[in-house]
């Protein structure tokens, strides 16, 4: 499979602003502030053609920087980047007809022009014939639900309506590779949902299309992306399908049970082969924590049981063991780690170790 996007040890540093360097030159002994800020520190990334690839990371992680390099707006400090097999530095001209970008919160366009006119203008810089452009504009406006604002001046649009217009702008040039930098920023729930739906359909509609998305909404990333990368401090922390990322967090299936048990000693779970971790904590001491589904008139003590198993199938033996110990299962739940869990764990750790370092 051909790589739509490929980076090799891609690095980008920014000079600290002049003001702060002047200040530090006054105090020559103060060398704690480095002169360069590493926005991307050696990123190796392969995005396949036809893939919907997500980039996750906290604020300032380097996501936008990476996208700016890939869209030929920013030069890499070192390393290489290829878009559709073309070098972003030496072949920028060939790349440009194939790409487009939609960024959240961008304020492009001319306030004196209406939505249609602005979209037309941005189609013209791609040389698209007006009739085709008009057709696509109407189609896109319908998709984002902005038809009734087609003739409204951009200066009179709300933030979300503006964002919808930007979103349309990216698709009207029919790019082969599209970059979406927080495209649903500022959109209401319904609009964001229909845009996600559209993005998915758009990608499958024509083979060869590729989409790189950044977002801060984990649900969006999980729902949309074929594969994800998490970056922080300019470094790629991990890369894989949403399920793979979740599994790195939790290698073994975990279960949460609530059981009613007369005699704890009769229950022998830890000896069952395949049980990695087993914790039993009484629940009854704290009646407030009981959920409504539990019988109030229960005579036997209630326990919460936390299990980590080598295999999911082992749960059958656990249930048998509980039943043979005259226990009653009130609740059984498989614990599903979320993408957010994975993100927080990965990025959270980095944050802590990063602070120690400085």
């Amino acid at each position, binding site marked *: 499979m051909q790589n739509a996007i490929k980076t090799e040890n891609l690095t980008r540093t920014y000079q600290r602003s002049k003001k702060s360097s002047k200040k530090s030159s006054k105090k020559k002994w103060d060398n704690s502030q480095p002169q360069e800020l590493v926005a991307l520190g050696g990123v190796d990334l392969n995005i396949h053609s036809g893939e919907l690839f997500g980039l996750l990371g906290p604020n300032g992680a380097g996501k936008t920087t990476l996208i700016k390099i890939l869209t030929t707006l920013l030069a890499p400090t070192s390393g290489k980047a290829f878009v559709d097999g073309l070098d972003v530095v030496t072949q920028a001209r060939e790349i*440009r007809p194939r790409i487009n970008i939609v960024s959240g919160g961008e304020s492009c366009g001319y306030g004196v*022009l209406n939505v249609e006119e602005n979209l037309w203008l941005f189609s013209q810089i791609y040389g698209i014939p007006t009739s085709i452009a008009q057709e696509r504009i109407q189609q896109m406006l319908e998709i984002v639900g902005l038809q009734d604002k087609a003739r409204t001046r951009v200066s009179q649009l709300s933030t979300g309506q503006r964002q919808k217009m930007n979103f349309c702008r990216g698709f009207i040039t029919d790019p082969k590779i599209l970059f979406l930098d927080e495209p649903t920023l500022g959109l209401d729930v319904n609009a964001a949902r229909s845009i996600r739906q559209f993005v998915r359909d758009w990608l499958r*509609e024509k083979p060869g299309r590729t989409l790189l998305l950044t977002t801060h909404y984990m649900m969006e990333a999980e729902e949309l992306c074929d594969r994800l990368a998490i970056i922080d401090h300019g470094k790629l922390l991990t890369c894989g399908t949403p399920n793979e990322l979740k599994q790195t967090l939790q290698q073994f299936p975990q279960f949460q049970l609530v059981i009613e048990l007369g005699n704890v000693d009769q229950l022998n779970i830890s000896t069952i082969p395949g049980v990695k971790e087993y914790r039993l904590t009484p629940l009854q001491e704290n009646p407030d924590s009981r959920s409504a589904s539990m019988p109030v008139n229960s005579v036997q003590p209630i326990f919460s049981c936390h299990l980590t198993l080598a295999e999911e199938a082992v749960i059958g033996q656990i249930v048998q063991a509980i039943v043979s110990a005259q226990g009653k299962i009130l609740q059984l739940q498989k614990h599903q780690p979320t993408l957010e869990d994975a993100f927080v764990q990965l990025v959270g750790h980095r944050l802590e170790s990063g602070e120690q370092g400085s």
Partner: protein
Amino acid sequence: MSNQQMNSKLENQDYPVKISWFALTWRPILARAYPRMIGVRRQPSWVFHEAILPILSVAAFAYVYRAMNAPESYIGFVILGGAMTAFWLNVLWSMSAQLYWERSSGNLELFIMSPSSMMTILAGMALGGMILTSIRALVIVTAGILLFGVVLQPISWWLFLLAFLLTLLALYGMGMMFASIFLMWGREAWHLVNLLQEPVYLLSGMNFPLQVFPTLVATLAAIIPLTIGMDSMRQILFATPGFWPLGFELIFLTILVILFIYLAYRFLRYLEDKSRQEGKLTIKWQ
């Protein structure tokens, strides 16, 4: 439905869809000219700014010359000067700051990212400005003819048209160059514009003939295409002796056009590369 048609149309195309160089030149130029022309017209005050104000300022000068019993041809100079200064001010105040403004609105990065050349965007701005300002210039000239009875008897209308177009091209070529410089220097460049605006009224001989000035100053002023452009137009329109021979002035203007456009191109290239290195193409503040 149309949706379906659209999709099948899309599927038949190969990536990337080939767009001719020609389409990638004239489409961006016209598109970028559009908001400049429409934009001003949609501002409610445009009639006042574009028509009434210029007439008033030209009329003021004309009456002063009348009161001073200056030769009648001077009033013709004023009218021509007023019309051409409209272009000059448009270049200075709209053209120069355009790219700078485009960057802060986020349009610049979209332009740079697009397959069209930044030169077409600049040319579009220039075209829009030219067309828009032509309305103002036309208003001034019409007012001059009707109110002050200025008689236009050019040696040749074709020659006049040539001189006029060359002047415009040189002016807007300079505007394109300024726009690039502006982007590089940011706010500092505002001082440059301020610096250029005032002396130009005097040096470019807008309101009186160039020979009044010492040769050195006049030569310096000639760098500004308006000076030579207007001197040549005066020679053609009013058959007055000029600063340089007419043919020489026209050649000089042609050289200016080429020089300015070439410099604009070089500046843009330099600036684009530099900003890409420094990460300043997309900055939204400064």
